[in-house]
């Protein structure tokens, strides 16, 4: 244990995802030794992101305004929605330049052991977006792991009976991986070769 402020910093850093106690300590001492100007920049970036960035009220993507850049873009089709787990998946798919529709960010995947059920995801928001009949296809682009697959299975069961074309990214994406790590070519191909799910 260190004195007051240092220990507080280590504790806060240790709460970040993927940062263990050892790393938290290393980062804390790095910051202590760093130039105050550099630390100020980091503080500003943190303050800024909390003050200005919000979640798009339509799709759940991160956004500087009420509606995100994709939702505001009139050249993008309103007929196709691509469903992903996290905002970073939107970035990965945008890199492929393969998709010209809109997105829907669920905010995770169904994972009963971690206490995440269908009601904890933005599924009812998705259903209301489909209500007016504009959307004709929903592409399920959850992660190619068991939680992502189960989430898509759950969604397909809701969507197929609504008469929509429901598709899942083609296999070829490495199973067990994160969507964000798929390279553009592989992800682009998975999009092109998406298969339709029937009831």
């Amino acid at each position, binding site marked *: 244990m260190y004195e007051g402020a240092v220990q507080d910093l280590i504790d806060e850093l240790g709460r970040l*995802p*993927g940062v263990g106690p050892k790393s938290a300590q290393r980062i804390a001492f790095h910051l202590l030794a760093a130039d105050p100007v550099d630390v100020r920049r980091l503080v500003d970036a943190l303050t800024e992101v909390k003050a200005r960035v919000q979640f798009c009220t339509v799709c759940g993507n991160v956004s500087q305004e009420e509606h995100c850049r994709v939702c505001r873009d009139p050249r993008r089709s309103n007929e196709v929605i691509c469903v992903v787990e996290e905002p970073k998946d939107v970035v990965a798919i945008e890199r492929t330049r393969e998709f010209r529709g809109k997105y829907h960010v669920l905010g995770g995947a*169904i*994972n*009963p*052991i*971690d*206490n995440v*059920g269908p009601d904890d995801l933005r599924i009812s928001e998705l259903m209301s977006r489909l209500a007016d009949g504009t959307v004709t296809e929903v592409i399920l682009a959850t992660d190619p*792991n*068991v*939680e*992502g*697959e*189960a989430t898509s*299975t*759950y969604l397909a*069961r809701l969507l197929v009976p609504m008469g929509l074309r429901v598709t899942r990214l083609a296999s070829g*994406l*490495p*199973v*067990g*991986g*994160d969507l964000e*790590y*798929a*390279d553009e070519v*592989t992800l682009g191909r998975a999009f092109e070769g998406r298969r339709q799910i029937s009831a």
Partner: protein
Amino acid sequence: MSLYRDEAVVLRAQKLGEADRIVTLLTRHHGKVRAVGKGVRRTSSRFGSRLEPFMLIDVQLYTGRSLDVVTQVETLGSFAQVIGRDYGLYTAGAAMLETADRLVEAEHEPSVQQFVLLASALRSLAGREHAAGLVLDAYLLRALAVAGWAPSFIDCARCGAEGPHRSFAVGSGGAVCSACRPPGAASPAPETLVLLAALLSGTWEVADASDERHRREGNGLVAAFLQFHLERGLRSLRMVERV
């Protein structure tokens, strides 16, 4: 650095840092083990698909300072794929994994029976050998029995008086005779107790022929048993889809 090799079921997988994953394994000989799979979330990983929940694997690990590290994995039972594509199987399977994780508390303490029980229950679930809800309840009852909390469905759980009995009390250990019956004991249908006894003993002809009504009443009693013995409630149980 010491290397060891074992069979295991992957109970949980949590993201760690950029591309690693921490997996909780229930192994045959080394009990519960927490280990790191390095780089497994990258698409180039050969291990990624094998270090997923529900997978039955043959794994090689080396002993690390805090966590062991996975160095090799082969698939013995690829249950994740089938289970991920059927929501009923997924929720039932998740409740099994959470139960195993909770019942086997200490790490590196062998619990061969719990391993064998879980591996065969997952095989049965993924193979759709019986209704998912029945496979789950059979697994839960047997896992409790192995943990030392075998319920009694026929003879009186208190005094051993020969059954069948009409009353049932979770806190007393199952069926109770009229003399041992505590206030507030339930009176389930006799067929429900027959079903539960069949699930515990693996008499599948009886279990498969049971009706919906008794299955529903049975899984309520099994859930009550489980909650009674585990300190905190099971999170995944409320999400199980019973068809």
